[in-house]
């Protein structure tokens, strides 16, 4: 027994503020991001982009580029023929036909970037421009130019979900709102630009250093672009400068780096400039959403229908798959008894979309949350009361069979409304709407629902975890869970310290090498704290059981009387220390029948595969968030200033409070940019604003004060009760601002962003209509 140690009472770390373990190195510039990496013998790869949206390649001559001193390889479409990859096998690393502005036509590996750029300039390409397709409506026309020979009618993915009798529900509705919403193209703007480094060994095995956020399926997706076996790919994930969904697929620069490495026998690094990043990295999916929602005179929802047309762009990445989530919102955002959902993606010659934080739900909630507000207005109810009337409670099941086991929507609504004094302000601001004065105040409420326990869109939504302890009681967690800045490192550290009673700084995480760490689906779908949190906790509990069993044998005290606290084995009842943990571990290790603490766990959440009919409990948890935005509108310039945001979110249980706040604040900032200023100006397939000067992110002065409320619904399946949280903040804020704008000015914006030009024009038009004696009904509500 240790003489010096004092009794240790149990102090939980759950819900405390834990620092990110990698923060000191990042704050001092010591962290070596992939962008900073240099390998011996490394060549620099650069890509020649088409710079035109739709064309046939008549001739390509690389002779002069090949001859330039310092150039080691030049590749064209001929070097990648047949190596199709992507969700619909419609993409290839280097193209033989141009289908969008950033199509990769040729690539060079050279000793320096300067030489590589000079070589690109020496490549001669003769194009024959073809008529292009720049909207999904145009692409769907019978006489539209065909973008891919094997996709007739330019038809890409199609989705449908129906529930109940639509005609009957429409007949039973007193009010129906009917609008077309056009969520626009935006892009991730990761501060670290896209980068990959590839190197082949002489056994034909590829090592790729990449920013990917899904290392295991990444192997499966990259392999066909190279014609190799996925098992021959080792994925290493150095620290990255952001991802936000943009690295959830393979994009051509990655197989290009690998093809150049194969050709030269040397490591090749491809890294984008900011302009290339804007043009050639994925976008958020743009959509045309024709939505109708009905309710009775007393404010009960009767149905919701959505007919969605998606601008697929030139190739199919995650973007056109968003209807999988869109339909969950259409069918599950409040109690909707009858649902009709259709979505069709049409190939165009525009940039193509990937996944982006809020995946599909940003676009859908933009529509559903505004129509909720319109219906409340038309039945003359306080939107809060309207929302409460239709809000689901714990135990309800949506038409798609999402089982809302622990549902805190009502609590979120009440917390946000009460903290912001919503109902009083809404009435007051609406009364002042048409009073004199340039500046108008408004308040708007919006909410949404999102998967919060993973999303079983693959065959597995699981994670593997290996936990080992050394002779000094230092813990290493080898996990599939990727770190892209979101803070799973702090969560894992916290959980291990909680379970094994070791200091936070004694936990090391290895999660960046696919040859070492076991399977995980990736950082997406707000899943990592939920899934990796459970995996880590289970592994730590197995290690704890092994340690306490050994302690029982050595100390003669039954395991159920023991606990691990403060780096010691203690009596559970009063914390009396019995032996230092590291000493016990050494005794376990160096005895006649030695044992090491090294445990494995595979955790698969209790959720059902999405399935072709989309009727399944596809997530192990669901969560709601409510945002209330308070704004000031300059009616002369159309500028919206967000004065304050009150956000209430069902987080299940707070794990790392500091990380949680950071995710909500950061998610909100991305949502604010989407709402107010970010907009890819694409003219006939060509991006016109490929720089931060013309593509406006939210900056520090524009960030409003936030009042965050975390509702703890204690999710039975979640780690310590936690749910996944990171996407809802991005999803809900834009329609909250739109509803505030309506409250302030009486105008509705259907096509984001709510830029000053758009808002000023809408205000001007409303005034013109009002002056002409027309009744302005921005909600376009129909009394049936």
């Amino acid at each position, binding site marked *: 027994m240790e003489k010096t140690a004092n009794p240790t009472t149990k102090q939980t770390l759950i819900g405390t503020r834990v620092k990110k373990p*990698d923060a000191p190195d990042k*704050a001092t510039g010591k962290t070596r991001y992939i962008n900073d990496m240099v390998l011996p013998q490394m060549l620099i790869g650069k890509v020649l982009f088409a710079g035109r949206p739709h064309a046939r390649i008549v001739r390509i001559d690389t002779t002069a580029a090949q001859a330039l001193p310092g150039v080691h390889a030049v590749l064209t479409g001929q070097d990648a023929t047949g190596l199709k990859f992507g969700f619909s096998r419609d993409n290839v690393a280097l193209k033989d036909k141009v289908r969008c502005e950033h199509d990769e036509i040729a690539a060079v590996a050279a000793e320096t970037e300067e030489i590589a750029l000079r070589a690109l300039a020496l490549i001669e390409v003769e194009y024959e421009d073809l008529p292009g397709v720049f909207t999904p409506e145009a692409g769907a026309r019978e006489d539209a130019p065909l973008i891919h020979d094997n996709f007739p009618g330019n038809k890409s993915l199609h989705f449908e979900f129906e529930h109940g009798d639509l005609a009957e529900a429409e007949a039973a509705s007193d009010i129906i709102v009917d609008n077309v919403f056009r969520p626009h193209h935006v892009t991730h703007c990761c501060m670290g630009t896209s980068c990959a480094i590839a190197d082949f060994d002489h056994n034909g095995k590829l090592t790729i250093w990449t920013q990917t956020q899904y290392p295991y399926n990444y192997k499966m997706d990259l392999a066909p672009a190279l014609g190799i076996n996925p098992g021959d790919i080792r994925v290493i994930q150095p620290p990255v400068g952001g991802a936000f969904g943009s690295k959830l697929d393979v994009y051509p620069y990655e197989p290009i780096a690998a093809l150049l490495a194969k050709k030269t026998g040397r490591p090749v690094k491809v890294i984008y400039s900011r302009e290339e990043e804007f043009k050639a990295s994925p976008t958020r999916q743009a959509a045309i959403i024709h939505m109708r929602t009905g309710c009775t005179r007393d404010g009960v929802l009767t149905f919701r229908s959505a007919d969605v047309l998606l601008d697929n762009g030139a190739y199919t990445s995650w973007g056109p798959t968003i209807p999988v989530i869109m339909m969950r919102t259409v069918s599950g955002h409040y109690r909707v008894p009858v649902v009709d959902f259709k979505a069709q993606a049409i190939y165009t010659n525009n940039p193509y979309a990937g996944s982006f934080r809020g995946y599909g739900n940003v676009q859908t909630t933009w529509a559903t949350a505004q129509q909720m507000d319109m219906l409340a207005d038309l039945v003359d109810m306080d939107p809060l009361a309207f929302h409460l009337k239709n809000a689901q409670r714990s135990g309800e099941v949506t038409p798609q069979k999402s089982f809302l086991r622990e549902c805190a929507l009502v609590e979120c609504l009440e917390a946000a409304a009460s903290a912001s004094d919503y109902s009083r302000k809404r009435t007051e601001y609406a009364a002042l709407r048409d009073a004199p004065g340039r500046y108008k105040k408004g308040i708007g409420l919006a909410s949404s629902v999102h998967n919060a326990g993973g999303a079983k869109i693959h065959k597995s939504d699981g994670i593997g975890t290996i936990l080992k302890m050394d002779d000094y009681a230092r813990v290493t967690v080898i996990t599939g869970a990727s770190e892209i800045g979101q803070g799973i490192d702090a969560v894992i550290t916290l959980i291990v310290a909680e379970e094994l009673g070791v200091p936070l700084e004694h936990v090391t995480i290895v999660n960046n090498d696919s040859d070492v760490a076991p399977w995980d689906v990736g950082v997406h779908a707000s899943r990592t704290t939920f899934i990796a949190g459970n995996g880590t906790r289970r592994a730590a509990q197995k290690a704890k059981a092994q340690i306490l069993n050994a302690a029982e044998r050595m100390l003669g005290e039954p395991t159920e009387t023991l606990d691990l606290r403060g780096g010691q084995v203690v009596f559970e009842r009063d914390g009396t220390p019995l032996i230092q943990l590291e000493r016990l571990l050494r005794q376990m290790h160096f005895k006649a029948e030695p044992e090491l603490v090294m445990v494995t766990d595979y955790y698969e959440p209790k959720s059902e595969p999405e399935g072709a009919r989309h009727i399944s409990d596809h997530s192990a948890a669901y969560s709601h968030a409510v945002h209330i935005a308070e704004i000031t509108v300059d009616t002369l310039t159309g500028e919206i200033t967000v004065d304050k945001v009150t956000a209430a979110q069902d987080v299940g249980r707070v794990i790392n409070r500091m990380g949680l706040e950071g995710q909500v604040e950061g998610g909100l900032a991305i949502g604010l940019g989407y709402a107010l200023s970010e907009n890819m100006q694409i003219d006939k397939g060509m991006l016109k604003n490929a720089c931060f000067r013309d593509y406006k992110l939210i900056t*520090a002065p524009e960030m409003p004060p936030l009042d965050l409320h975390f509702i703890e619904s204690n999710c039975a399946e979640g780690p310590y009760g936690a749910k996944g949280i990171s996407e809802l903040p991005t999803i809900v804020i834009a329609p909250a601002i739109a509803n505030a704008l309506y409250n302030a000015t009486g105008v509705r914006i259907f096509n984001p962003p709510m830029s000053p030009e758009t808002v000023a024009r809408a205000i001007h038009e409303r005034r013109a209509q009002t002056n002409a004696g027309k009744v302005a009904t921005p909600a376009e509500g129909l009394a049936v």
Partner: protein
Amino acid sequence: MMSVETEIRFTLNGRPVSLKVPATMKTLAMLRDRLGMTGTKYACGEGECGACTIEIDGKTVNSCLMYAVDCDGREVVTIEGLRTPEGLHPVQQAFVDHGAVQCGFCMPGMIMQARNLLANNPELTREQAQRGLEGNLCRCTGYTKVLDAVEAVAGKNTCGRATP
């Protein structure tokens, strides 16, 4: 085709440096590619994001816009130069403690700018910090925790000149 190289001498994080650089080379490229100082980041290359912020003679600049030859005879401080023998600079420590670091890519520039603002105005208010950090883009944090960190350091007079 090699461009003309010029020999320059300057002080980098308190130590004398001399090297030859092409006339067209930017300070950012010199720091990263010639001197191995990769703490300073490239994120836009045109002075719009602040990720490459360094300090020259006590003033912050976007190193992506400044020619390397213009460092000649001057005092240059990068993020690597803020560290003290005792460990992290108080501003760096505040960023860590307040959860201001997520992916962290913009943080070297953000911290250089924040430290400079505090050195020039030890009583910096939150609103002044918001305005002073307008040129530093961050995609992860929503700036809230960055401002919390700056507010925590303000008033403590910990940001005298960074140069040792």
